[in-house]
């Protein structure tokens, strides 16, 4: 698939001396939903801000749809819509006026019909003549999205769009993101709710301390780094793992009443049938069993803490 954003050798050192980005290389594919994950202060907002023209890079280049963000900023920026992390909108403007303003600012001729459809999509149409100051936080968040979409961008950045948003709005928002993706818009989002990324994203990038440590297809990432566990709830608790089970990676939990088998999802042979056969030969009875796959969240925490440990 074609790369719609190409980032190479991007670094950013703030005036304070903070190395916010260290040699970041990344390609965003046209039409995908890309989730950028990372702990607080990892450099996510900095990366987005550079691509959008708000922060100047210390070195490196970024191409947006083939246009350099510095030398050909008009072409690059007119393709991008940005919903920033902070809720900042002109407090004294009306919802409709501010969306119209954004559209004009990005070089588009007025199109009240289009602005109306964006506001309707975000359930803001009824509030179109309200002053932004009088809206609730969640509505302001939607106004920010309306502003970003008002000029029909091909690329949408969502920097923590669901922070402080209730469950229902969050669901609406993801439905909107899917609709946008289906219409061909490329979406790059950051979030601290990893279950969201797990549900929404096509690809995942993990950034930690300014370095992009993983970029991977979500499914492959989960298969590659994910582990599966089989838990057997035993009929009778055991004091220790019986002899003859050395071939399996087993652990005894919950005071000896649970036997846990961890296996790699990549392996052809999970060893489960053999294990179960062996257990019945040994006379170990169990009343229940279930398997569990590690979530993206666990993978993420492992990646980031591994990285931190390695640094120290």
């Amino acid at each position, binding site marked *: 698939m074609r790369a719609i954003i190409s980032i190479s050798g991007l670094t950013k050192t*703030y*005036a304070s001396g903070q190395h916010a980005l260290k040699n970041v290389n990344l390609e965003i594919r046209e039409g995908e939903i890309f989730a950028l994950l990372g702990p607080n202060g990892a450099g996510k907002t900095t990366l987005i*801000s550079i691509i*959008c*023209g*708000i*922060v*100047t890079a210390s070195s490196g280049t970024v191409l947006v749809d083939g*246009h350099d963000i510095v030398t*050909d*900023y*008009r*072409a*690059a*920026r*007119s*393709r*991008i819509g*940005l919903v*920033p992390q*902070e809720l*900042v*909108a*002109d*407090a*004294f*403007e009306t919802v409709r*006026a501010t969306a*119209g*303003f*954004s*559209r*004009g*600012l*990005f*070089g*588009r*001729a*007025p199109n009240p019909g289009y602005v109306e459809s964006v506001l309707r999509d975000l359930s803001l149409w009824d509030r179109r003549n309200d002053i932004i100051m009088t809206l609730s936080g969640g509505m302001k968040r939607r106004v920010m999205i309306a*502003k970003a979409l008002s000029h029909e961008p091909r690329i949408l950045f969502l920097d923590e769009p669901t922070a402080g948003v209730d469950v229902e709005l969050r669901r609406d928002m993801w439905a909107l993101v899917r609709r946008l993706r289906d219409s061909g818009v490329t979406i790059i989002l950051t979030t601290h709710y990893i279950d969201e990324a797990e549900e929404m994203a096509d690809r995942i990038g993990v950034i930690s301390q300014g370095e992009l440590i993983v970029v991977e297809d979500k499914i492959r990432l989960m298969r590659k780094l994910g582990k599966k566990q089989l838990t057997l709830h035993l009929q009778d608790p055991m004091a220790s793992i019986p002899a003859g089970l050395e071939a399996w990676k087993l652990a005894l939990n919950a005071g000896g009443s649970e036997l846990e088998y961890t296996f790699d999802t990549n392996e052809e042979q999970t060893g489960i049938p053999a294990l179960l056969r062996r257990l019945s030969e040994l006379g170990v009875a169990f009343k229940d069993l279930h398997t569990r796959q590690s979530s993206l969240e666990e993978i993420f925490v492992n990646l980031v803490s591994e990285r931190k440990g390695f640094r120290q």
Partner: protein
Amino acid sequence: MRAIAFNRHGVWAIYRFELARFLRTLLQSVLTPVITTSLYFVVFGAAIGARMTEVDGVPYGAFIVPGLIMLSVFMESISNASFGIHFPKFTGTIFELLSAPVSAFEIVLAYVGAAATKSVGLALIILATASVFVPIHILHPFWMVAFLVLTAITFCLFGFIIGIWARNWEQMQIVPMLIVTPLTFLGGAFYSIDMLPPAWRTVTLFNPVVYLISGFRWTFFGSADVDVGTSLGMTLVFLLTCLALVAMIFRTGYRLKN
């Protein structure tokens, strides 16, 4: 999509947004100059003018009109233009401007254009109010408008620079209060600098405001403290200096971008 060479929709959006901001406070914007001007006429025109009938052959009441207009244009231009760009910086909405496909020139054109529009409008309101108190005859209307527009643009540029430079609201007030007000009062807004002792007259000639007021007064009465060509020249020098500073700000991203 074709790359745009001039983002006219963007300029228009900012210009309209800024004018809408002024219009929201229309009553205040119109009433303030009308009341202030009337007060000046009561105090300076009636009280002092009664004793000082003529300056350079012009009735004192009429003599102070150009200075009065200039004084307001300076103040309003600086405060409107500085506020216009400082407020988004303060609230954070500037992110949108920085991420938009607008050039530095377009941003300045829109912000300074809107602020200058308001300043010129205000000047005309003051002129209209003043003409209620004293008969006013403008000798060179074309040059009057030219000086007015040039001065408004210059001071709006100056205000724009202050708005970017200022880190907080106090700093926004400092320059107009510590520099512009004294320079204006010492710039012959309410008297002819010929009325000053010779030593002070020389000092005054280093005050750029003298040239602006003098030139503007010439367009009304055909006589001035300094040669009108010099006045025009100084006005242009001032304008170009501000333009150069603005260009530098955008080239370096000074206090705009990290």
